[in-house]
């Protein structure tokens, strides 16, 4: 499915040839909207944390705000055609000096919104602070003490991972995901400037938080020129009907997370354009692997063979995209796995019998927990999954909860956590596959499943330690992912399609697969 990743050649090539317009000029916001002089009003389906420190949260809506305000070393459009494509932003070149040393060359003449010039000390401070063990986001491959970061001159940063024993190339993917913070802000320490406001190098600067509205204004000193849009109002609006009404009456410029029915409704509206993008998010049926009966791989496999994923996609309509792996097709290393369990009731029955539960007899009552109100159609396809499992003899009952209550019950805890299966998506704005695989299936993390499996650990360690990206891809595709498909700690049901609706004059706005937006129209 994924085409050849030419990152190595790309990194070896001169950065000068890589321009912003290389992605696609269409992703610049259309001049028609910019000339109207109106601020862009974005209605978000998710609220923010209220703590502006980018390392303090994993909240998607806040990551979207950071996408407007903060600068990144690179950006990765993550398209189906070219998942590995990179556009340099604050970096002009990134290359591996050896397996444990990565050299980053920085763009000159860039300033933070508070006026401080951007330099190597900011990259060093960002990496060292963000990798701290106490930072809640935990995006880094190893803690601060495993990193040695040097700044030999005013445009170069060397990241050395030898102390941690993991390869430095892991930072290549992360470069598009980690917002660059000011060393001055970081020096203020916990509770300082980082918490109170965003300060970045991006096209829009943070003005204020006004109730549910985050107010951003075009940054005069943006290194690519001041954006044509004067500002952005980013507003949390919890109800999808309200968001849609606001778009239809012209109050909102762009809204996110449309239900499939809403797409059908607005498709005929000449004033509104729809943007559908295969996202970085897969939706999963997570098994609680540390307690019976799903501590038995045969029972997990039987459950997987009981579920007809094609039927789920019919329910989802435009909001779902077929995939057969644990990561999205827009992530590094994706392939359609040959041994990914397909719908096969006969095999499900054989596995159940082999596990000592013929036709499901002897299985305890099983609880399947899902949410309603955030992801599209969870209740609807949850009911279908429940019916399919019951058909094969799994005594499953579905518990549908509002997001806050569901979130309480989501994660693994000692003893297995609530319920036996949980529905949840996982979205990270980077091609890095370990943000899903290692996070969920390595014994050191296992956030939802609770799986502890030495074979999986060893394979995940092996792919991470591969000296080059090509070798890593080979290990991922030939060993790690097939191994996971043979053990199925979770069933990835499908890949989400991120659906945005916007005013027609905004058509062409580039929306990344994690939902963040490029609105940096130059003047």
């Amino acid at each position, binding site marked *: 499915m994924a085409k050849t990743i030419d990152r190595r050649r790309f990194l070896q090539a001169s950065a000068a040839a890589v321009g912003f317009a290389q992605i696609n000029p269409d992703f610049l916001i259309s001049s028609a909207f910019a000339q109207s002089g109106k601020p862009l009003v974005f209605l978000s389906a998710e609220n*923010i944390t*209220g703590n502006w420190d980018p390392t*303090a949260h994993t909240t998607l809506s806040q990551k979207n705000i950071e996408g407007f305000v903060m600068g990144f070393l690179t950006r990765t459009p993550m398209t189906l055609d070219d998942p590995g494509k990179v556009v340099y932003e604050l970096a002009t070149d990134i290359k591996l000096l050896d397996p444990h040393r990565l050299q980053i060359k920085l763009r000159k003449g860039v300033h933070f919104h508070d006026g401080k010039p951007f330099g190597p000390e900011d990259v060093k401070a960002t990496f060292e602070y963000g990798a701290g063990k106490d930072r*809640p986001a935990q995006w880094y491959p190893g803690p601060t003490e495993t990193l040695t970061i040097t700044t030999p001159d005013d445009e170069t940063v060397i990241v050395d991972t030898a102390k941690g024993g993991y390869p430095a190339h892991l930072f290549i993917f992360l470069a598009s995901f980690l917002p660059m913070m000011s060393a001055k802000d970081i020096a203020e320490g916990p509770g300082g400037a980082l918490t109170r406001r965003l300060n970045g190098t991006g096209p829009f600067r943070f003005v204020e938080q006004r*109730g549910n509205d985050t107010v951003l204004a075009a940054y005069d000193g943006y290194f690519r020129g001041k954006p044509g849009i004067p500002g952005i109002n980013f507003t*949390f*609006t919890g109800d999808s009907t309200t968001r849609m009404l606001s778009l*239809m*009456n012209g109050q909102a410029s762009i809204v996110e997370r449309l239900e499939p029915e809403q797409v059908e409704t607005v498709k005929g509206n000449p004033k509104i354009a729809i943007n559908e993008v295969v996202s970085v998010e897969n939706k999963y049926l997570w098994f609680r692997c540390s307690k019976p009966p799903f501590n038995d791989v045969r029972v997990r496999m039987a459950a997987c063979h009981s579920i007809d994923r094609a039927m789920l996609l019919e329910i989802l309509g435009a909001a779902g995209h077929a995939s057969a792996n644990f990561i999205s097709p827009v992530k590094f290393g994706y392939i359609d796995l040959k041994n990914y369990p397909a719908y096969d009731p006969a095999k499900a029955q054989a596995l159940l019998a082999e596990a000592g539960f013929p036709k499901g007899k002897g299985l305890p009552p099983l609880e399947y927990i899902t949410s309603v109100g955030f992801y599209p159609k969870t209740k609807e396809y949850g009911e279908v999954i429940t019916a399919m499992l019951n058909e094969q003899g799994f005594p499953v009952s579905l518990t549908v909860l*509002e997001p806050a209550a569901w979130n309480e019950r989501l994660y693994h805890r000692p003893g297995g956590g609530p319920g036996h299966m949980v529905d949840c998506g996982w979205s990270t704005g980077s091609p890095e596959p370990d943000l899903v695989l290692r996070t969920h299936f390595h014994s050191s993390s296992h956030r939802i499943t609770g799986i502890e499996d030495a074979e999986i650990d060893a394979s995940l360690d092996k792919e991470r330690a591969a000296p080059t990206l090509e070798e890593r891809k080979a290990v991922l595709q030939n060993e790690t992912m097939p191994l996971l498909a043979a053990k199925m700690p979770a069933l990835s049901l499908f890949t989400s399609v991120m659906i945005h609706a916007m005013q027609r004059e905004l058509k062409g706005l580039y929306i990344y697969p994690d939902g963040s937006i490029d609105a940096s129209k130059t003047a």
Partner: protein
Amino acid sequence: MFVLSFLARRLAQGAVIIFLVSLLIFTLLRVMSGNPVRQMVGGMAPDSLVEQIATQMGLRDPIIVQFGRYAAGVVQGDLGRSFVRPANGAATGGANFDDLTRGARAGVGDLILDALPMTLQLAGLALAIALVFSALLGIAAGLRPGGVFDRLAFAVSSVFISIPNFWLGIVLALLLSVKLGWLPAIGYGGFSYTVLPALVLAVELSPVLIRTLSSAVAAQMSEAYVAVGHVRGLSRPRIVAAHALRNASVPLLNLLGVQFSSLLGGVIIVEYIFDYPGLGLLTINAVLQRDFPLIQGIAIVTSAIFVLINILVDLAATTIDPRLEY
């Protein structure tokens, strides 16, 4: 003198009511499902950390002890701090509790004071629209029982009371905002943003007001003093305006007090649909986030408003009709 003793007596009764409501809400919040500490620390935190923080916050003390501590703060004007919302006012999804960079939490009193004027504006406008509409129809219906207006009033009331407010809100927004472009619908950017949600609330309020007015006016028009008024040579408009309506206004006034108070609860769905930043939207978010101090604060303020409005209504009713005793 009567007014002072009336106020003293009713305020004392009101204080007892507010105390009981607070105790009830406080107790219910602590026995219902949903753990606020789990929301604060995040789903990944182990149960032991949840228990440790809950203990530190005093949430494992007996309910009566917790309530005593809370009530002592309330008496001094301190409604506490939100569990979830930061001082910058954002609607939050909850940051990690043990994160040292977590900003100061917002004061419950400040959050309520920001939202309350918006809701009072909405409720006030809704009541005004409902009153004007109901008065026109209800009085006309009451003056001719069984006539055209009476039948019309019955039909309108029946239709209005059957319309779910969430449906009407969406339809009105589609019609008046999306199709005709006459009014803004979502959020708040000035007084005009209050009109659509107020219309929805007015439709909800009107049936009871129409029926009360029409039956009260009809009852008054059948009283002996109306016939005597004719004999004394008073004109029908004079009898209606100066006598019948004045007497018919007492039951309406009592009803208005109850209706205005219930509006404070009724705005929840309407504010959510229109994303109107009042007390209703604040309440929904507080409930979804298990933000106990905020829910309690809203309950206390709402019950205090309820009590005060009823006292004022009773006071006004006794002024209109001194025979009434409360």
